């Protein structure tokens, strides 16, 4: 497999999406789990419509952060050590592997965000405002979570704690994304500019992407 970088990225994306189509981890497990979590919250805190409308957007983003990590990690840590060795022997560029896994996780996260978002709109009566900026926010959050999940998934892969450790690593690091996402929605609702929040999230994405690409080879060698 001594082809170009982007060809390798495409191959990894295709492989991951094919695996997801066969196993359906995200579609049949993570998305329903996220929807159930949104259903449980009102049962615990009360079903007052005004209160739910207020907390709905925040709850949605918290669910996206906590459950979205599972989507990204599932893709990153699903490779066994022999599979990783085989990929390395085939000449797969570790950076291409990282970008490919993060890209496929991004696509799955976008599906997750959309379905869970519709559930949030239905259950919490969340209003959809500023659609173009909202789409940009959803996209950046998906890319950011995918990168963080893929990177930490690679770090913990085949450790004794396995993926159990990932939420502890990703949750604190994803705080800028959570802040950016919630504040962006609030800004859109009030008609304010959200450019600064979008730039903050984009900066986080850029930093994680650079670290992920630069450390892909050292991580593969360990």
């Amino acid at each position: 497999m001594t082809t170009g970088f982007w060809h390798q990225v495409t191959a990894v994306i295709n492989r991951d999406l094919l695996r997801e189509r066969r196993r359906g981890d995200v579609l049949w497990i993570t998305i329903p789990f996220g929807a159930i979590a949104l259903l449980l919250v009102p049962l615990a805190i009360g079903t007052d419509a005004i209160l739910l409308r207020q907390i709905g957007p925040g709850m949605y983003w918290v669910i996206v952060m906590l459950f979205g990590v599972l989507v990204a990690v599932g893709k990153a840590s699903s490779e066994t050590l022999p599979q990783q060795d085989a990929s390395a022997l085939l000449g797969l560029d570790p950076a291409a592997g990282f970008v490919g896994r993060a890209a496929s996780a991004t696509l799955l996260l976008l599906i997750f965000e959309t379905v869970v978002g519709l559930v949030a709109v239905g259950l919490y009566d969340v209003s959809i405002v500023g659609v173009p900026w909202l789409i940009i926010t959803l996209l950046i959050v998906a890319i950011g979570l995918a990168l963080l999940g893929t990177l930490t998934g690679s770090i913990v892969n085949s450790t004794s704690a396995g993926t159990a450790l990932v939420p502890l690593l990703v949750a604190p690091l994803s705080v800028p994304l959570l802040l950016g996402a919630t504040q962006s929605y609030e800004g859109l609702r009030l008609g304010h500019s959200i450019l600064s929040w979008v730039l903050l999230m984009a900066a986080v994405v850029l930093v994680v992407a650079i670290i992920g690409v630069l450390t892909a080879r050292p991580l593969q060698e360990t």
Partner: protein
Amino acid sequence: MQAQTLNRRWPWVAIVLSLTIAFVFAMISPAADSLQGFERVRIMYVHVPAAWLAYLAFFVTFGGSVGYLITRNLRWDRIAAASAEIGVYFTGLAIALGMIWGKSTWGVWWTWDARLTLTAIMFFVYLGYLALRRTTDDSVLRAGRAAVLGVLGAVQIPLVHFSVIWWRGLHQGPSVVRADGPAIQDPLMLTALIVGVLAFTVVYVSLMVKRIELIHLEDRKAAIDQSIERPVAGEAVTVPDLGGSS
């Protein structure tokens, strides 16, 4: 023999001496502050040095992580690991003391101020770093993975430091390192604070020396353990006696 004992004990002697000096300075500095009042101001002499040393410790972890990724020398990993452990301790101390001070001054244990929140996040990031290290037995494997997280986690350090400048909150802004000079007017208070920082730096260096030494010994022990051939099941399992003639 005496030289060996001295060599072994100097970190502890240095810690006790430096903390005693810092304690004396903290006690002789003026107690009453027009805003903070009474004795609670003395919490600052531990809280501020602890927070500064936490930054230093995590920055050293970052340096050690980068050093390991470049050189693949485990010495850098030991520096990073030891520094992260001490940094987590200092961060926890700074948060705990800040909460005690906050309760008596602001009336609440915790407030959603940017500095407080980001410090708590930094604390959890490095707890994750230490948890990651515990999940991998192989020292080379552990060093590589921890180094990546050590680099990633360092993004938090400038965020925490500059949070009081970038966001308005309850936490006060920089008091000592400022373009227009220190905000603390009383020279004795300022001296006590600087002495506190120096004393905590001595504590940090001393603990680093001992911890690096200990990690080195742990790695050597692990290597010896791995080199010893042991029976797979051990003596707990014996060959079953099925009876009959042999």
